[in-house]
């Protein structure tokens, strides 16, 4: 596949994987992207996962048409991109690895080799000329690992963005970019909003015709503009849409019934509502909804004088990712000593710029007139 006349795609689709990073379900698989820039010198951008090294080298050989690559530029050291480095370096003994200073100790730690005699260490602002293509390097620490660099091809105006702008889903599946890019962003990069903002500031000065991430499609034209808009929004922790996520963790179904009742009340008022059953859903879907919408209601049962574990886990996912700048309502359930709201409130204390709504709704075992009235008051407060 041609990205531009000189830039070719040689990545692979993985449909075997069930959990990405051991955590994220990927029913449509994922792609490990790799690119080649053909010039007087040839640069290969990143390797692929260990299971696809041979297929990747076959694609590379087909593009090279008898030539040999000069550089392997390593933007990121997670093994889904770096595990085939050794295969490449053995196949092309003249090639040199180009990466940040922090990448090489990681190479040693993961794979036992840091290529001391075959490497070029680059930092922010360094330029590597392939002939007509001049590549400038952009440091992108903690987007989302410390060694990450991005590369800008000045001739074709293409940004190689490492895991930034990546998404779940193999390239042979058709879907809207934002949906799985959002789940990927908030799951994997979400904690590092300030670091993404630093990179966006640097790239805003560049003319961009394409962004080539390490997962998901190459972004061009309207899709590129939309991706930049969303990344700016996401990384500054601004809500993307008006709406209410109601995330519930119910033991017998009564907390769920309260969540559904609240959803009905809000929908009657014309609000967009999304319900997530934390006991069963992919938690990363609930997390992306929590960041996507401007309001969230957490509904949970009391359990062992604490909050029901799926809710505790959900709030941990949010606070780990710097959750902030949202309005939150709480619904608790407890049959003899309701504790869930107190615990949820405590867990949320580390979040900045959170508005906690009154009233906190307490359900005693099952909804009754009193708790229905409290739900109606919470619905009003959410409007």
């Amino acid at each position, binding site marked *: 596949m041609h990205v531009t006349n000189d830039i070719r795609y040689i990545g692979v689709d993985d449909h075997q994987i069930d959990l990405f990073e051991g955590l994220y379900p990927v029913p449509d698989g994922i792609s490990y992207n790799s690119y080649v820039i053909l010039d007087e010198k040839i640069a290969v951008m990143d390797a692929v996962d260990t299971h696809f090294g041979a297929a990747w080298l076959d694609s590379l050989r087909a593009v090279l048409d008898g030539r040999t690559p000069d550089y392997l530029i390593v933007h990121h050291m997670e093994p889904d991109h770096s595990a085939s480095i050794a295969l490449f370096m053995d196949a092309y003994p003249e090639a040199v690895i180009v990466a940040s200073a*922090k990448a090489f100790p990681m190479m040693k730690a993961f794979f036992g080799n840091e290529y001391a005699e075959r490497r070029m260490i680059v930092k922010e602002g360094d330029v590597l000329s392939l002939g007509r293509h001049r590549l400038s390097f952009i440091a992108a620490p903690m987007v989302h690992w*410390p060694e990450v660099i991005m590369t800008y091809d000045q001739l074709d105006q293409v940004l190689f963005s490492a895991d930034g702008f990546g998404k779940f889903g193999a390239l042979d599946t058709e879907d809207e970019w934002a949906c799985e890019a959002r789940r990927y962003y908030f799951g994997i990069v979400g904690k*590092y909003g300030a*670091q993404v903002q630093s990179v966006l500031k640097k790239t805003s000065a560049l003319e961009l015709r394409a962004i080539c991430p390490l997962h998901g499609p190459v972004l061009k034209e309207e899709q590129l503009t939309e991706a930049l808009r969303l990344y700016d929004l996401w990384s500054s922790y601004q809500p993307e849409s008006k709406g209410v996520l109601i995330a519930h963790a119910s033991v017998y179904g009564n907390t769920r019934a309260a969540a559904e009742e609240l959803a009905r009340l809000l929908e009657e008022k014309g609000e967009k509502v999304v319900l997530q059953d934390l006991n069963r859903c992919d938690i990363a879907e609930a997390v992306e909804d929590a960041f996507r919408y401007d309001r969230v209601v957490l509904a949970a049962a009391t359990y062992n004088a604490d909050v029901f574990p799926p809710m505790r886990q959900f709030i941990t996912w949010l606070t780990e990712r710097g959750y902030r700048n949202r309005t939150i309502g709480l619904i608790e359930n407890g049959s003899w000593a309701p504790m869930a709201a107190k615990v949820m409130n405590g867990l949320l204390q580390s979040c900045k710029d959170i508005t906690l709504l009154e009233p906190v709704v307490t359900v005693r075992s099952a909804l009754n007139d009193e708790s229905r009235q409290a739900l109606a008051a919470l619905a009003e407060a959410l409007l």
Partner: protein
Amino acid sequence: MKYVCEVCGWVYDEEQGYPEAGIAPGTKFEDLPEDFECPLCGVGKDQFSEE
């Protein structure tokens, strides 16, 4: 004074300095070079806060 990297938790202690990077003991955080980076995760001075 101590300053902590908000990203990874590494601590810059003015009393200790950071001799590994040529920063002498007693160097104030504000006197660290503008391009000073967290030695663990690489983010800049703007992402440190007082401990």
